[in-house]
């Protein structure tokens, strides 16, 4: 388990009992809170709403910051430590800001056999960012190296935000996808 990326905090680590500065706190919108309440009602235990609520937090706030985790804990009424533990376990919760268009490039074996390593290098070259190194200066792009996206047959496979592009074999297709991103044709990362 070599991905314990700690969530972005205020400049100083928080001491026990210390609260986040007011400027950094996050509040769910009324609709999001209602959505979380609705999810909690569907399960026999409210704890089960942790994962869905973190997905909502990521959608609302763009990424799952420490403040977002605290907001989730408050919304469900569970310990903050539990939410922190869950959010840092799962790789799909981004603990640091990502670009408007987040590229997840699969480099696992099936994709690697068909040129995923070279594709990842191409994506990095075209977007000007390194995998996992945060968004580009203009906030447009970020890149992540991920494991199998279940598009093995038409590898290499790339996910842009929430949509899988699994016919991305060459540079030409990559340019097309990036152009379409610039025109705003793809579903944005956060709503």
């Amino acid at each position, binding site marked *: *388990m*070599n*991905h314990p990326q700690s969530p972005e905090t205020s400049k100083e680590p928080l001491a026990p009992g210390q609260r986040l500065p007011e400027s950094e706190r996050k509040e769910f919108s009324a609709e999001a809170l209602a959505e979380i309440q609705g999810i909690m009602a*569907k*399960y*026999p*235990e409210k*704890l*089960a*709403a*942790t*994962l*869905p609520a*973190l*997905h909502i937090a990521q959608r609302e706030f763009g990424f799952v910051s420490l403040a977002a985790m605290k907001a989730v804990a408050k919304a469900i009424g569970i310990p903050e430590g*539990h939410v922190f*533990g*869950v959010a840092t*376990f*799962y*790789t*799909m*919760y981004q603990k640091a800001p990502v670009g408007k268009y987040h590229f*997840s490039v699969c*480099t*696992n*074996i*099936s994709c*690697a*056999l*068909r040129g*995923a*390593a*070279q594709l*990842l*290098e191409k994506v*990095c070259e075209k977007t000007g960012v*390194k*995998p*996992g*190194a945060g968004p580009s200066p203009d906030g447009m792009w970020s890149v*992540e*190296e*991920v*494991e*199998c*996206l*279940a*598009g*093995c*047959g*038409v*590898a290499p496979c790339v*996910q842009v935000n*929430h*949509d*899988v592009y*699994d*016919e991305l074999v060459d540079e030409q297709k990559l340019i097309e996808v990036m152009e379409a991103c610039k025109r705003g044709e793809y579903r944005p990362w956060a709503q």
Partner: protein
Amino acid sequence: MVAIRTKPDHHTYTFPGFGSEKFPNLLLRGAGDLNNWHLNVYEQQHEGYVAMKAALKMEPVAVTDEVKASGLRGRGGAGFPAGLKWSFMPKDSADRKFTRYLVCNADEGEPGTFKDRVILEYNPHQLIEGMIIGGWAMQCVTGYVYIRGEFLWLIEKLEAAIQEARDAGYLGKNILGTGWDYDILVHRGAGAYICGEETALLNSLEGRRGEPRVKPPFPAAKGAFGQPTTINNVETLAAVPPIMRMGGAEYAKIGSPKNSGTRIFGVSGHVKRPGIYELPMGTPMNFLVEELCGGSSTGKKIKAIIPGGASCPMLDEKDFDVPMDFDNLRARGSMGGSGGLIVMDESVCIVQATLRLIKFYAHESCGQCTPCREGCNWMEMILHRIEHGEGRPGDLELLSSLTPRIAGRTLCPLGDAACGPMDSALQKFRHEFEHHITHKTCYVQGSRLLSTVGAH
């Protein structure tokens, strides 16, 4: 209501002769047609919900017996008989009533596997029908579908399909006048391969970290939310409606002995026509790779095939004729796994391929058991130095001494899964590793499976 994605994909789903008596089409009806997911198409063209209506008129025990008679074995990887698993669920008695759950494992993350996605994309109602029949057989109150988080568009589609089934009266209160209440909920994962393990999946469903639990208690005794639970793979549940339609005994005639039915094989890597092929169990591997997939796409000879997803030990040339079912693959030292074939030609450096696979397991280990957490990381580090020309004499002995210390010593099979490719690569392609250590370079020139930018 969200718009359902209509982007076509480029997988191959069929081949000449598919759908005939020799190659029955039980799971891929209408695959490739993006309109196929609707309830009316399923009911009008693919005998949809016929099996469910018949099953709801039967005694629940009789339904389980039918699935038992079919000999259906779990398609998630372990190949455990599905009917037997269903029969483990405790039954209500006069003094004790149970709340039972059925969970569908759609956390498809095994590298090289892309079969469940096809069912969710084109035939979600077949899965829903299978879950209703399973729910009835075990008298469950709720069915949960745990889908990996990356499949957002499939989650939207499945939820729309479930709503269609609710509107038709197949889900909800008092289904078709039986007095039985049942609903299906979709739970979205968040990118952890380990959640494909059944008890880790249950933890994740309950809103915890996806760490496998100690067994026993097995899920049939204490599963989701502490209640009796059965977990089945998407393909297993989708195979239930055809079984109920044709009868268990008839289904058992398809495939090879003790490995009945058809199975979806996903072929990826160096073949001309990679894609999804539904074949009877026991079909020889070289028939699939050479005849249906057109053989090597690069013109080079095929060197190794991983027969059932990344966790299965790889096979070399002498075993390419293996009939693909659980027992035959086991006899050849591999596994049936999840049915994802990864084909590698002669241009592939096995050291690089193994390193990439082990890197995956090191990354996905949940960190709970020391042998897996530390062992996978050490295997990665040793392979990394061999690959980068810093291998030391004795490294291969070190690697082979590590695997028996991981396999069988962990709570879940992830540790064992990492040892499968490692051991088989060392055993079958040892000369490539030795070449790497002595010559500081690949045995095959020009293989580039690893990226040079950053690492995760």
